[in-house]
């Protein structure tokens, strides 16, 4: 996907999420005469098995996927980065303990811990955010820890220590800007992961609850009608795929532009 196209897709996604309430969307309105109607000139993206307009449902679903992703990634990024950076900077037994905890969280494969947590906490929007954040912070913690370890012996940090700067100042002013680029890249790919995870939990019936439309639950509900109305799976599926591909494209582009490793390590001083 071209970068401009990816940015356009993301703009539509964010626009629908933030300003969708300005549009006349009725995701739960039932029109019995239009049950399973395929996409067409007067049907937009078609209708589902209850006669609800798929365009309205996908557009409102964008709201859930967008805000869940933004919330989860921002909380995970702040908490994870703080834990990882402090752990690496202070070192000692604290670092040892935190590293072990990170290892344990990383030992749960993929979305499994989120499935378990969402299953135990009960379905619902808030619990989805909690479950995905509990899983999400680890990646940031590991990255921030590794980056701070790599950067903390640099001259300007040593100089700041020698000048008597406080730890908080050194972490926030002298180390965080250095690792910011990799954190932004991690956060971008994190958005794609959370969008998929939220849809996955909703697909399993552990996420956003009906009648609220989540792309994941729309895909699940479509399975019984797939032969007669394939548009019921294709419409939310395409929405999900477009957003994920767009986010990944943006992540790749950011990595090419920001990643210090690709520019021979020297450029990091200008960040």
């Amino acid at each position, binding site marked *: *996907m071209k970068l401009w196209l990816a940015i356009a897709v993301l703009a539509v996604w964010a626009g629908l999420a933030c300003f969708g309430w300005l549009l006349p969307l009725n995701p739960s309105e039932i029109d019995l005469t239009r049950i399973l109607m395929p996409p067409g000139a007067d049907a937009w993206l078609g209708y589902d098995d209850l006669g609800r307009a798929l365009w309205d449902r996908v557009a409102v679903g964008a709201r859930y996927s967008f805000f869940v992703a933004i919330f989860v990634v921002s909380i995970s990024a702040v908490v994870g980065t703080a834990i990882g950076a402090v752990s690496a900077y202070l070192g000692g037994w604290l670092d040892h303990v935190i590293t*072990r*905890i990170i*290892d*344990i*969280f990383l*030992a*749960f*494969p*993929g*979305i*499994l*811990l989120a*499935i*378990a*947590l969402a*299953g*135990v*906490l*009960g379905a619902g929007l808030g619990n989805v955010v909690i479950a995905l954040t509990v899983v999400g912070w680890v990646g940031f913690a590991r990255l921030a820890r590794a980056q701070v370890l790599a950067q903390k012996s640099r001259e300007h940090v040593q100089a700041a220590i020698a000048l008597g700067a406080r730890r908080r100042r050194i972490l926030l002013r002298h180390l965080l800007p250095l690792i910011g680029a990799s954190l932004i890249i991690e956060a971008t790919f994190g958005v*794609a992961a959370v969008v*998929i995870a939220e*849809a*996955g939990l909703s*697909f*399993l*019936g*552990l996420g956003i609850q009906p009648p609220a439309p989540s792309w*994941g639950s729309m*895909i*699940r509900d*479509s*399975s019984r009608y*797939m*032969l007669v109305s*394939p548009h019921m*799976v294709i419409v939310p*599926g395409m929405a*999900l*795929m477009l957003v*994920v*591909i767009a986010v*990944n494209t943006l992540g790749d582009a950011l990595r090419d532009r920001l990643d210090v490793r690709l520019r021979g390590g020297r450029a990091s001083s200008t960040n």
Partner: protein
Amino acid sequence: MIAFVLSRLSSALLVVFGVSALVFLLIHAIPGDPVEVMLGETSQPADREELRHALGLDQPLPVQMLEYYRRLLHFDLGTSLYSRRPVAQILAERIPATAELAVAGLAAALLFALPLGVIAAVRRGTPWDSGAMMFSMLGVSIPNFLMGPLLILIFSLWLGWLPVSGREGLASLVLPALTLGTALAAILSRMIRATLLETLAEDYILTARAKGLPWHRVIFHHAMRNAMLPVITLLGLQLGALLAGTVITEIVFSWPGIGQLTIESIHRRDYPVVQACILLISVTYVLVNALTDLAYGWLDPRVRLRQSDRGAA
């Protein structure tokens, strides 16, 4: 080498210990009274007390924890609240289906990734390369719960080649394996392309070419060996995603494995079974990872040296 094996195994054991602690604590994450949640709000107080006692939830937390570990060591995973049967027995019935699916998914991933990655690297910059990379982009961006229905739509409903769901014979394994393997195939083919390109730029490849060896010999005998090392590590790490992917894939295809059992048990509030399933999948992942590391250390001596450096630091 022995020191490396021991240090890797002991850290794996420590992680298993921590993972089981977290799984144990999971039941305490249930909001409110777990017993009430499991039995429903209309349950009798006497029944609740009975279950509370049976689950050991009337004991102080440290006692519960010790008891939990003591039972784990005896492979006693408790009793299902739903079917009243030992959890270990239920798991044992489901393991073959999931193992079969995971192995088939892995095989499908390798079957696609190897040729795609090699062709993309060898024919770099041609339509072959961009085609393979497009597949890779699509593969990582289509989650299992979308890939599964799409494959069913095309190959079962439209073409009628393969069964829609269930576990009856080899044909029923094809679509679940493809669904599970696609994401891994996508990631692996990218990695194979990248490492193979890097290896092909090395001097010894030039030497092999200069000797007049044919291309296929250079690629498969000289380059692939070195190029595969990072791929093996990635494979070990990605097996976790594959195992987690079995949960959703089993739901899509009604495949009677551990994943389906996990979700069924969550909906039935059968938490002893949920805990056991999560524990089983995670511990499998930890062990597979440890084995991958050991295999890698055995293949490449630099790894075990680096590892022991890090262990000492």
